[in-house]
Structures are given as C-alpha cells and as structure tokens.
C-alpha cells in the first residue's frame, strides 16, 4: 500500500485555515492542526473580562475550528520565543506593531520543526490558509517565497487556497496531492472563500477584521509603545501584555501609569495583581480598582488618587477617601479632591 502522507496545518481559527484543511481532507489527506500562542492572540476570553462582553461566545476559535474539522490540535506556547520576533523583526512592522511577515516565517519555521519531530508518524508537509494579496504585508505574491524560504519549509509548504498561482510544491510534484483540485484565490475579495465555505457547510466561523492578533490594533499598539517608553526599554512580560488589554490607561507623569478598571469585571481581574503592583481604591464611594505601573512615590498620591476618583461615583464630591496600597507596606488612607474632566488632560490618555 502506498504511504499515507499527512499534513500539519497552521490553524488560526479563521475561515481560511479551515478551508485549507478541508480542501486536503477532501483529497483523503490526514491533517492535524497546530496553533501558536504568542500572548497577543485575539481570543474570546480576554474580551470576556469586561462585563458587557459576557454574552459573547466564550470559545477559543482554533479549538472550535479543529472540532468542526475533526482534527487534533496542538497548541504551542511560544510567548518567550516570540519576543524576539516582535522586538527585532527583520522585515519590519505593518500599519501598527504587527510584525506579520516575520511572524509568519516564525510560525512556519516552528511547524517545520514539528514536522521533523513527527516525521516518523507520517507527517511530511505543512499547509496554511494563506491567500495571495489577502493581507497587505504578509500575504503578497513576493512574500510567499520569502516565507517558504526563510522558514526553512521550502517546497513542503503548500497553500491549498492559492496553490495554482504558485510554483508546484513537493506534495503536488510527488502526487500526494492533486494540484488540479487546489485553488487559485487571490486578492482581498472574500467571495470565493465564502462560496467554498458554503459548499463545505461551514457557518458561524470567526472572521477577524484586522488580523489574528492584538498587534494589528492601533490602540493596543500605542499602549505597547507607551509601555516601552515609560520603562526606557523595549521588553515585556506576559503580565504586561495581559494588562494592556484591560482598563483605561493614563500616564500623568512619564514615570508611572494608571490602569483604571472600566467595570466590575475588570476590577475583579485587576484584583489578582494587587500583590504585585501598587493599587488605589476610593473607599468612601463606589469606584474602580486602579493599578499603578512604574515608579510611584508619596508625591504622586494626590494626583493619582484624584484621577482615580474622577472615574468613581464620588466624582462630584468635594472630597473622597482613598487607599493607596504598595505591596509589602502598610496601607495609606488619604483624602483627595476628584479631578474635573478638564483637569484629566487629554494627553494623559494612552
């Protein structure tokens, strides 16, 4: 019997990767999925921290997609390794802090490594849902060979949705896959994908507007750049990137910033950081929990607590009482006049 060739698919959870997998499954190819967690991935749960998003589907799109496809999914934590991709992208950034091309190369190279490790189980090639011209930075005609080459995948990287517009790859040349039954999608028009989705009976799939991660979001990118500026170094830990997703961020002074919860859900989430970071809480009225990130001293208490008070129910009072908690020190109670909305300067908002 001829050897069964298996493929590993990069699964983002979006429609394109689902289609790519199903196209190969239709040809009788066994596929397993791989998904990389960089820390910046957009997935329902961090949105769900906020109260008003509670009703949103709390599902991980990659897992959901894998289940629809009936494939196994390996989720790989690449948080540490990804730092170098984000901090030093050889090919630069997209519209925001998204290093898409380097990111793709990195992910495909990790898949190459996985294929090598699982070669004895029959894995020979990699597939992605990439489509030429779909994304301005990473999915252009010129970048397709760059991804294949720099990742080390070369001719074992197959893009079923646009394969007919690209040179034949090993799985096609060797006849493991029938090139005739692959596609020639290109450009930003999503109609062909939608039509194919319909043909395969896919409904309710995720369709991320900008990209697959927070780095394509302007607001998020601005906060990340502000964090680096505030610290005087371009580095981050997992907690930093989680906190950038939560709350209202204000930097009244270069040395520190405030992370003000926007609702009870966020307050609860921020509670978890009180042992690590200084926090401010108005106690005479209801108000949001606020964390302080940076160098924060006694001289800053009044301004900081005044800002925090602005976002609580005591905002119109002459004076509110607040506590400042520095981990490992006694809690300090202060009285402060809430700032007016004019006093909270526009440029403090990150």
């Amino acid at each position, binding site marked *: 019997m001829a050897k069964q060739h298996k493929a590993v698919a990069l699964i983002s959870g979006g429609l394109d990767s689902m289609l790519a997998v199903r196209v190969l499954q239709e040809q009788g190819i066994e596929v397993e999925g791989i998904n990389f*967690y960089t820390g910046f991935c957009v997935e329902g749960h961090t949105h769900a921290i906020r109260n008003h998003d509670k009703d949103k589907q709390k599902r991980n799109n990659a897992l959901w997609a894998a*289940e629809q496809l009936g494939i196994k999914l390996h989720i790989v934590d690449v948080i540490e390794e990804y730092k170098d991709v984000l901090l030093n992208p050889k090919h630069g950034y997209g519209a925001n802090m998204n290093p898409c091309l380097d990111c793709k190369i990195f992910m495909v190279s990790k898949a190459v490594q996985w294929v090598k490790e699982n070669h004895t189980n029959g894995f020979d090639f990699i597939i992605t849902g990439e489509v030429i011209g779909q994304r301005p930075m990473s999915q252009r005609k010129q970048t397709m060979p760059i991804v294949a080459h720099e990742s080390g995948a070369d001719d074992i990287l197959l893009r079923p949705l646009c394969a007919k517009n690209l040179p034949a790859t090993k799985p096609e040349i060797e006849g493991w896959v029938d090139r005739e039954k692959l596609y020639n999608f290109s450009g930003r028009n999503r109609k062909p994908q939608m039509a194919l989705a319909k043909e395969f009976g896919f409904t309710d799939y995720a369709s991320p507007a900008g990209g697959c991660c927070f780095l394509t979001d302007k607001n998020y990118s601005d906060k990340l750049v502000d964090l680096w500026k505030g610290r005087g170094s371009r580095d981050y830990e997992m907690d930093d990137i989680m906190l950038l997703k939560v709350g209202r961020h204000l930097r009244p002074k270069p040395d520190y910033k405030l992370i003000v919860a926007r609702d009870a859900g966020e307050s609860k989430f921020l509670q978890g950081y009180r042992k690590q970071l200084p926090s401010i809480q108005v106690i005479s009225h209801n108000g949001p929990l606020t964390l302080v990130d940076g160098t924060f001293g006694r001289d800053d208490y009044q301004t900081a607590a005044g800002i925090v008070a602005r976002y609580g129910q005591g905002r119109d009072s002459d004076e509110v009482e607040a506590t400042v908690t520095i981990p490992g020190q006694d809690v300090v109670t202060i009285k402060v006049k809430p700032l007016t909305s004019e006093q909270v300067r526009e440029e403090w908002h990150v």
Partner: protein
Amino acid sequence: MSEYELDARRMLCPMPVIKTQNKVKELQTGDILNVICTDPGALSDIPAWARINGHEFVGHDQQDDELIITIKIG
C-alpha cells in the same frame, strides 16, 4: 490508574489548555486529571480540547471562584 492535579489558577485561556495538554503527555490511559482554574473560559476550552484529542471530559465542580475540571485520559 492514578489521579493528578494541575494548578492553572489565574491563567487566562488558552494557557490552562496548554498546561493541560503538556501535563497529559506525561500521563497514561485511564489516568484522571483535575485542572483547577479561575478563567471561566476554561470550561469550554478544556472539554473541547479533550474531545478533539480523544480524552474524556468527566465533569466539573465550581467552588467559589475556582473551577475544577476533570478529564480522563484516553
């Protein structure tokens, strides 16, 4: 057959799933794993992960803010 516990408190999804996946690699068929988490999203993700990878989701228990999700290794 043995029973194991995994602490995934304060982790946000998909970290509890990744930790579960990595722990399961060390376990044998029939073993029981109790994952303790605080992210409610884990309640949809860990069972989904178990289903697609051939393990059994036995059930879950809620204690205050903590969720204990039990799976049986397939």
